[in-house]
């Protein structure tokens, strides 16, 4: 199993380590997942995300290349802007979900999930044509996510308020000076809160981690594990690859339709049109204090119509059980359905609009810096 440069730091902080996508990662630290989750919603959380993959694509044909490979409207992206995308196979299934960063029309960075990055690299190389060069910079790139309403103040503490006060959601600064270290500072994240994804030289990761924890101490920063990352992203209405979105399921009828631009041709588009109406995905909130559990079936009027794809206790919603279902019937918001778990126990759940928790991610940067 692979380890990030911060593995020893996590162990020293008392982290419980677990496996994720072939990596040994912190699940939570001593204070626990609930405290980490709340710290990110209220103050700031720092996450080791070095396990994710990064690719640089250059060349005159790269704009056409991305239009063919990705689902979102790449043509509306300016230099210094990022955009969330699905990368589909011919059957309309999701090879991966990813963020594309545009440096300029001939230089781009694609950021992908940990467990899928090797397959992604093969696919990216296989699909290359004309003047398109794909470079895997994952092994030499570190990634830290600093998220939460105090995140801007912590960056300002290190780099000055003026360096970020104009920064909008889904914009990035390629050569950002973070306390003497050159990083890519991106105003993106996976928590629903305002914050940054920071890409750095892998050898600088430990120093930047220490620096941010140190500067963030007075703002109540907590190191956060993958446990809090999962509860935060689910509440924020974001999917997890391998669960809500998968290579073997065409991505139709989801709350993430905003990532699919039907006005351009891309791999998998025809399959999506053919599969329209086959699947629908919804967030759900369950009664009581117990989760239904993995592999639960979704039942409507005695008929099995789908499965539960993720489930947590929603920490910011009074710890109510919440999750996502994928079903074969269109259900209005507020529809009561049943989750039937492997032990035959039934739970009442209700479809809900996403996001379940509306965070600060899109608010003006300036309000966090006063």
């Amino acid at each position, binding site marked *: 199993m692979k380890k990030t440069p911060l593995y020893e730091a996590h*162990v020293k902080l008392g982290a*419980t*380590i*677990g496996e994720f996508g072939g990596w040994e990662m912190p*699940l*939570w630290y001593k204070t*626990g*997942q*609930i405290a980490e*989750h709340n710290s990110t919603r209220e103050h700031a959380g720092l996450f080791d995300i070095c396990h994710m993959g990064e690719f640089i694509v250059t060349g005159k044909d790269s704009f056409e290349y991305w239009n063919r490979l990705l689902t979102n409207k790449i043509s509306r992206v300016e230099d210094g802007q990022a955009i969330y995308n699905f990368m589909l196979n011919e059957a309309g299934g999701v090879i991966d979900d990813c963020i594309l960063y545009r440096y300029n029309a001939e230089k781009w960075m694609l950021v992908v999930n940990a467990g899928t990055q090797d397959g992604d690299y093969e696919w990216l190389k296989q699909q290359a044509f004309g003047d398109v060069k794909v470079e895997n910079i994952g092994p030499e790139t570190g990634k830290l996510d600093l998220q939460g309403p105090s995140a801007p103040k912590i960056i300002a503490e290190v780099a000055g308020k003026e360096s970020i006060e104009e920064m909008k959601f889904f914009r990035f600064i390629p050569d950002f000076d973070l306390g003497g270290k050159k990083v890519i500072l991106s105003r993106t994240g996976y928590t629903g809160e305002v914050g940054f994804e920071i890409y750095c030289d892998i050898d600088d990761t430990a120093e930047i981690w220490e620096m941010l924890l140190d500067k963030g101490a007075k703002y109540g920063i907590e190191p956060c594990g993958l*446990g809090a990352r*999962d*509860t935060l992203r689910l509440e924020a209405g974001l999917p997890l690859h391998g669960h809500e979105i998968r290579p073997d399921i065409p991505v139709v009828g989801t709350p993430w339709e905003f990532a699919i631009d039907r006005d351009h041709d891309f791999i998998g588009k025809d399959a999506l049109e053919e599969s329209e109406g086959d699947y629908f995905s919804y967030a759900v909130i369950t009664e009581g*204090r*117990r*989760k239904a*559990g993995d592999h639960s079936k979704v039942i409507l009027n005695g008929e099995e119509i789908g499965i539960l794809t993720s489930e*947590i*206790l929603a*920490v910011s919603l009074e*710890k109510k059980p919440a999750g996502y279902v994928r079903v074969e019937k269109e259900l209005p918001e507020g529809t009561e359905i049943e989750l039937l778990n492997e032990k035959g126990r039934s739970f009442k759940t209700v479809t809900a609009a996403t996001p379940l928790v509306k965070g600060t991610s899109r608010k003006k940067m300036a309000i966090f810096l006063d």
Partner: protein
Amino acid sequence: MSYNIPEKLRFKDTHEWVEDLGNNTYRVGISDYASKHIGDVTFVELPELDSSVEAGDTECVVETVKSSEDIFFPVSGTITAVNEDLEDAPENVNDDCYGEGWLFEIKADDSKAFNELMSATEYAAFLEEQE
């Protein structure tokens, strides 16, 4: 990672601890290893008082933010006590797993099943294999 493993307890391979209270009565909880690995406990579904239970069965669930963990009865017998304080303070299972975080007590017919459980030393070796 190091774990607290009290000498006086015995352990099941599914990470329950068992304390001999005398008179074939046993108190049960989950080990430090288990409490660290399942994460924050939010709710405990306790077995029914006075019900008779079979070793290896489960009628007790520890619910965490991410998972639901079945607790397996380490011995057969009758449930003579359950820790009702966990209703309001489920976090005791994380904070004090060998003390305030106990789950239930069983009165067994004899001490045979208890004696077959792992000693603290055996459990420590078992955890080392797991890591």
